[in-house]
């Protein structure tokens, strides 16, 4: 009884938080979205003088935009696939095997995120320079792989650890080989959480900017890198705004996909929740 009374009371703190969050997150998005579909918007008018798709036509007519979109997608797919191929077996090993230095290695994946990233990137760039990887596609792949390690190791490790060992034993008991158990029981059980990790690393790679810029520029230009140069070098706001809206598309698709495969429970489990 008491609980229902409490829950019916207006939660002012919650409303204030929601309002502030909405203001901080949604407002800039609305402004950028408006700019992307604006032909003319001069101070001090609150709404644009003229809406239109002029700058979409101009932006999409540029060859560098299209090549950067294809570069970004190719990079994101390559990095995610490589990361999955390397990290998932490693995560399984971390979750199930005990070997010397296991914990040290496990926590080493945090190191990439424990220090200021740009310093780390500059140091890596120095090494890549000697290896002639600067300005190459595979150089960018390597640097972005580093960024995905944390997600692609830690979340799948938690997912594999959450799989009931008795389920695997029951599968052995009815005649499944260890590999078949992994394929038919362990992977499907850990599947939704691993899908979440793959999704996160795909989206993360797609938006990754510093590494791509430092290692790839000017030969390899991803969409975010192109957007930065547009914002820095062009006096026209709309170019940046149009690219922002374009960049938003993959994460939107990813989110829709995420809603289908990932229920909140398994997602939380991935983070050890």
């Amino acid at each position, binding site marked *: 009884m008491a609980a229902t009374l409490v829950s019916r009371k207006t939660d002012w703190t919650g409303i204030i938080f929601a309002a502030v969050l909405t203001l901080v997150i949604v407002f800039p998005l609305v402004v950028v979205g408006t700019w992307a579909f604006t032909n003319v918007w001069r101070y001090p008018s609150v709404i644009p003088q003229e809406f239109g798709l002029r700058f979409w036509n101009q932006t999409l007519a540029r060859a560098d935009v299209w090549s950067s979109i294809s570069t970004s997608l190719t990079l994101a797919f390559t990095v995610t696939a490589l990361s999955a191929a390397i990290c998932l077996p490693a995560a399984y090993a971390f979750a199930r095997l005990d070997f010397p230095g296991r914990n040290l290695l496990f926590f080493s994946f945090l190191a990439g995120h424990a220090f200021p990233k740009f310093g780390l990137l500059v140091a890596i760039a120095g090494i890549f320079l000697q290896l002639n990887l600067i300005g190459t596609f595979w150089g960018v792949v390597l640097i972005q792989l580093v960024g995905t390690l944390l997600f692609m190791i830690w979340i799948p490790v938690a997912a594999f650890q959450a799989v*009931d060992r*008795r*389920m695997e*034993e*029951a*599968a*052995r*008991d*009815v*005649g*499944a*080989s260890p590999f*078949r158990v992994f394929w*038919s*029981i362990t992977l*499907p*059980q850990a*599947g939704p959480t691993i899908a979440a990790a793959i999704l996160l690393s795909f989206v993360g790679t797609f938006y990754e900017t510093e590494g791509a810029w430092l290692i790839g520029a000017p030969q390899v230009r991803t969409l975010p890198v192109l957007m930065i140069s547009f914002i820095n070098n062009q006096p026209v706001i709309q170019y940046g705004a149009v690219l922002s809206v374009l960049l938003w598309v993959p994460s939107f698709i990813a989110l829709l996909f995420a809603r289908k495969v990932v229920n909140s429970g398994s997602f939380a489990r991935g983070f050890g929740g």
Partner: protein
Amino acid sequence: MSVLKIKDVSKIFPNGTTAVDSFSLDVADGELVCLLGPSGSGKSTLLRMVGGFETPTSGLMTIDGEDITRVPPEKRPTGMVFQSHALWTHMNVFKNLAFGLKLRKVPADEIKRRVEGVLELVGLGGYGTRSVTQLSGGQQQRVALARSLVLEPKILLLDEPFASLDQHLRERLREEVRDIQQRLKITTLFVTHGQDEALSMADRIVVMRDGKTEQIDRPDVVYREPQTPFVAGFIGTMNLIEGVVANGVFSKAGYSTPVPVSDGPVTLAIRPEAVDLTAASQNAHGKVHRVTDYGTHGLVDLELLDGTRMKAMVPHPDLFKPGQGVTLALRAVAAYRDGAVIYRTGVVTPVSHPALVDA
């Protein structure tokens, strides 16, 4: 059809704990043997070794004469039912049962026929398309049993299968499982720490303690003629009284009774149903502490003169009140010394009641 032999099997874990110590057991064809013991007695480890999930440190296990000691679980003719059910939640009931048959490359129409047949057997006909997460605990346990039975294993292994179920369901399921087991005549090894389960289901009970066998016998023999004080105290309710025998008479706190063994300390074991109580105001051996009325009979907790507690079963509990003095006569006793039985009077006809047997 199938005989399981376990010979001198030991299991020492890497940390040095001896879970099972030179254990031997033969399970006859179609027999249901219960491994009964407290936590840590090694019964589950033993069952997991038979299933192939643990490797014995030494010893030999055979099924129908074939050595299975080092055979991986997927190649053993054993079927295990786990305490946690361990159903695959990403498959429906039908797929859970069909998985093992598919691995054996059984044709689809035969899979369908066999799965439906076994589901009928466990009382879940028509449940094939249900998700296992939609089932109740008892239904899940039936699916787990069906998943093992559908493969027609030579040996069925049950690892505390009813531990997660409530009392009523447990009693019903154990009758069902016993029925199915006897109908299929399947050789079964059953692990439990519940003595009621062991007494009601088993053809023979193996009482285990610290990885070793304390006693292997029929349930009624284990109950009436326990070979060690441990078994005496573990199965059913038992009064275990430490005392001294001198000149063939056992004495304890003013109470004495003839026990014709050599002089020395003994542990006297008396079932509550073998204690006759009489209300007495003078020369009492002790006094009533508490009276519990179970409807069919009563149980009197009494205190001897030195404070030793005993239980006595009485037909008319209303005759006794707390604080009242009583004299006692023992109709049947067993005496233990150095962990072995050294004397036993005639066996008492048990008027036991489930309430006394339940843990």
